[in-house]
């Protein structure tokens, strides 16, 4: 594989190391906020962005965002270091480092943003960087397709989210999350249901809840460090973050409880079965991530202390062990050339450190004491017992956790123990930059489990307090909670999980039979896109005929109709015609214009028509001169001149007019032309009838000399008073010229190709 070239190659550039170091420094920067936030005082920064719309770039560090920020920067630094080695020698490694770093910053912005609009912008940035990263192997059509699928699905959810945010902002009068959280619940308010559905659409697509889950396993087309970082530890948790963030405002209604419980539980159980079914270890991990997301959503349905503590603890522990496991799988893939669960085995002697790290992550995943995973599971059962839909949530949680136990065995135990299979390469231990991540994450999972007080005080309880919207009394996170129902449930989980692990080969065969009969949402997605493309093609054929005459006809017909309708509905009277003040010269100019017009219409030669049209333009310029507007007149003259030259150049290349063709279309064209002309004249006469408002004229007459030191008002307006407009105009001139230039060049290139 190209991206797995020589693992011992020297680091190609500093970009990998550099991004990793910067991210690590950010991690240290956020660490300093731990004591402040743990003491219950969030930190807030405000940067005005669009003050007129009340959109500010506000950042808010409370328990929840700090936990996410630490995970993002901490795991980010480790993953970037890992990626530097994993993709060493890849020709586009620099690009990869840029994407990954941009993603890290976007994700950081997402969790720190206090303003809903800013949050949305960062939300879309993570979608976009994720798209670039999934499609990193851009030569592979499957990779491109999966990237596009993820982009379309999550961006659609993002748009719903934007609508929801705007509704929240408009109905509540503030876009600041901190103010919304303080203001209390939106339940029962006018737009609550709509807001809830829109926000959930965003959260569920991002966090891949069933039935919108299928993009996440496909996203594993990305290189393994990306899967570890984006599609497991951070980005997919953005949806969970959003639910946690809006928990104070939106939770508590029956709708919230039912939707989150059901979607979360179904996702968790479905994903755990799917995880068991996979033989590619990376796919297995993808589905276990889905299971974790489902579990998190399910617990966020609740509002009790235990439910929220369960969600936050599980979120922390999952990020640690899942990133670790993904990185471990990457090392195995790197060293052996395969990720197939059926082949891998007995790697322990060749890869002792990897085996240790995988064991630590696996034990946390299985929820074995004294790892933090055990505590998370205990708290989760305690939380499930308190939930409103306990009879539904508890069994679902039990099934999911038992399956998780079995999957942990498949991922973290089986590849390292037992007989060694037929491997493509001889296994060897990974290099230290790749080992550091899994080892650190594994050690943290154990350390937090042994010292739950520290993890609880600094990380989990502040996060719980942020979600609950009230200070957390704490005391729920402990290694030994006594003989109680959660402990019993844990023991049942272990027994059940062990049973499943022992029978997992048979179960897997059975599951693949079931899967073959189930509807394939991924294929339906392609069908949906096909329908869209066909619709787009059909309507393009209908509207975009490619015949210029038809476009012109449609444009002018619409113009004539809208003007006519407006004039009739506004009951506009006939204009007052007053020819009294007209001089001989004005009659002369009018005659010139008229003759030119008639000639354009009647001639059958393109060049004659063009020159006659030029006469009309020069007549208009003459009118400007008689009314002393020299600047406008000069411009008009020059433009007319250039139009004639340019069109003449174009016309030289065109065939002669076909007289019969002209006649065929002449009647409707004549009617339309006369209608447009008459209506425009009517409107203009009505406008002239109105008393002239001289306020602007007087301002410019007065100010152009005193304020802008210019006597030519037209020029002063162009380059001083309305410079920004002029700047926009010249930008348009440039873009139009470049566009036409490229089009014409393109035509020439095709012609030359045809000649060959």
């Amino acid at each position, binding site marked *: 594989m190209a991206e797995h070239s020589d693992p011992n190659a020297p680091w190609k550039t500093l970009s990998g190391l550099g991004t990793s170091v910067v991210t690590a420094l950010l991690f240290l920067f956020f660490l300093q906020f731990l004591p402040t936030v743990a003491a219950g005082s969030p930190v807030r920064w405000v940067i005005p962005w669009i003050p007129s719309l009340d959109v500010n770039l506000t950042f808010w560090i409370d328990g929840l965002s700090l936990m996410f920020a630490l995970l993002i920067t901490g795991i980010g630094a480790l993953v970037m270091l890992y990626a530097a080695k994993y993709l060493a020698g890849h020709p586009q490694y620099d690009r990869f480092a840029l994407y990954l770093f941009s993603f890290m910053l976007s994700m950081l912005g997402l969790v720190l943003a206090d303003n809903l609009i800013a949050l949305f912008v960062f939300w879309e940035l993570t979608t976009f960087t994720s798209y670039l990263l999934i499609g990193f192997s851009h030569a592979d059509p499957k990779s491109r397709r999966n990237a596009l699928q993820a982009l379309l699905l999550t961006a659609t959810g993002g748009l719903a989210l934007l609508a929801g945010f705007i509704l929240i902002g408009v109905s509540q009068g503030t876009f600041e999350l901190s103010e919304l959280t303080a203001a209390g619940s939106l339940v029962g308010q006018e737009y609550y249901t709509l807001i809830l559905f829109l926000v959930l659409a965003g959260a569920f697509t991002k966090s891949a809840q069933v039935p919108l889950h299928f993009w996440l396993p496909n996203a594993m087309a990305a290189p393994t460090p990306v899967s570890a970082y984006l599609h497991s530890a951070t980005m997919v948790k953005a949806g969970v973050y959003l639910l946690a963030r809006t928990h104070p405002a939106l939770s508590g209604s029956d709708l919230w409880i039912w939707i989150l419980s059901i979607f979360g539980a179904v996702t968790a159980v479905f994903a755990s079965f799917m995880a068991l079914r996979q033989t590619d270890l990376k796919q297995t991990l993808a589905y276990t991530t889905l299971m974790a997301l489902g579990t998190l959503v399910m617990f966020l349905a609740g509002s009790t202390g235990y439910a929220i503590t369960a969600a936050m603890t599980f979120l922390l522990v999952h990020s640690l062990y899942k990133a670790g496991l993904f990185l471990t799988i990457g090392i195995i893939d790197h060293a052996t050339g395969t990720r197939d669960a059926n082949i891998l085995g007995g790697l322990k002697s060749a890869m002792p450190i990897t085996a240790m790290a995988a064991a630590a992550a696996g034990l946390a995943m299985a929820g074995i004491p004294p790892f933090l995973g055990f505590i998370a599971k205990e708290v989760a059962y305690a939380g499930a017992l308190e939930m409103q839909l306990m009879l539904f949530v508890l069994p679902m949680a039990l099934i999911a956790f038992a399956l998780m136990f079995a999957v942990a065995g498949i991922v973290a135990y089986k590849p390292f123990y037992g007989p060694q299979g037929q491997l493509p390469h001889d296994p060897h231990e990974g290099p230290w930059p790749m080992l550091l991540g899994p080892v650190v994450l594994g050690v943290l999972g154990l350390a937090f489990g042994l010292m739950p007080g520290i993890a609880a005080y600094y990380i989990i309880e502040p996060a719980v307090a942020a979600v609950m919207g009230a200070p957390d009394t704490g005391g729920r996170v402990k290694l030994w909670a006594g003989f109680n129902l959660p402990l019993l449930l844990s023991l049942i989980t272990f027994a059940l999980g062990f049973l499943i692990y022992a029978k997992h080969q048979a179960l897997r065969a059975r599951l693949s039979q079931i899967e073959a009969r189930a509807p394939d949402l991924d294929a339906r997605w392609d069908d949906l896109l096909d329908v869209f493309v066909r619709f787009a093609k059909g309507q393009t054929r209908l509207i975009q005929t490619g015949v210029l005459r038809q476009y012109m006809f449609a444009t002018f017909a619409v113009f004539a109709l809208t003007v006519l309708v407006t004039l009739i509905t506004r009951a506009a009277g006939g204009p007052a015609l007053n020819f009294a003040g007209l001089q001989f010269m004005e009659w002369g100019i009018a005659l010139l214009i008229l003759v030119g017009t008639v000639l354009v219409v009647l001639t059958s030669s393109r060049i004659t028509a063009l020159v006659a049209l030029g006469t009309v333009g020069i007549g208009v310029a003459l009118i400007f001169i008689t009314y002393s507007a*020299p*600047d406008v007149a*000069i*411009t008009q003259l*020059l*433009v007319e*001149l*250039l139009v004639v*030259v*340019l069109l003449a*150049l*174009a016309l030289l*290349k065109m065939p002669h007019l076909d007289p019969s063709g002209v006649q065929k279309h002449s009647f409707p064209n004549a009617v339309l032309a006369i209608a447009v002309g008459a209506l425009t004249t009517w409107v203009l006469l009505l406008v002239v009838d109105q008393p002239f408002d001289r306020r602007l004229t007087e301002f410019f007459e007065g100010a152009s000399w005193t304020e*802008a*030191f*210019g*006597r*030519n008002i*037209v*020029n*002063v307006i*162009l*380059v*001083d008073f309305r*410079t*920004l407009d*002029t*700047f926009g105009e*010249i*930008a348009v*001139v*440039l873009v*139009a*010229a*470049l566009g*036409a*230039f490229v089009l*014409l*060049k393109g*035509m*020439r290139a095709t012609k030359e190709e045809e000649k060959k």
Partner: protein
Amino acid sequence: MNSIIFTAGARILVALVFVFSLFMLLRGHHLPGGGFIGGLLGAVAFIIYSLACGPEETRSALRVSPEIIAVIGLGIALLAGLFSFFMGDPFFTGQWYWVGGDSYETSVFSINTVLVFDIGVYLVVLGGILSLTFAFEEEA
């Protein structure tokens, strides 16, 4: 066009029209003229030349390709606007510096961003129209 008279006359005419276009550009702030008109006139000058001698020779006479002239023009216009930024004024506020005095009346001449902006306009219009014309002429 193979007329000798036109070709010979064009060489003189081009120089005259081109100088006239610069004249129109510079006097624009007080009298009819300015970047738009100047740019159009400048384009006319080179179009005459290209009709007489062909687009290829005109390109080499210009030395810089018209697309680049237009882009540079937009850059200059932008810089003229950004300059006020560094002086602490809102975007595109005209900046005036009097040479030999402290106001318009007492100074000999002034250096200002407004003229710089107008030069940018001139270059965009000149370059834009020329790139279009050349593309038309060369498309065969």
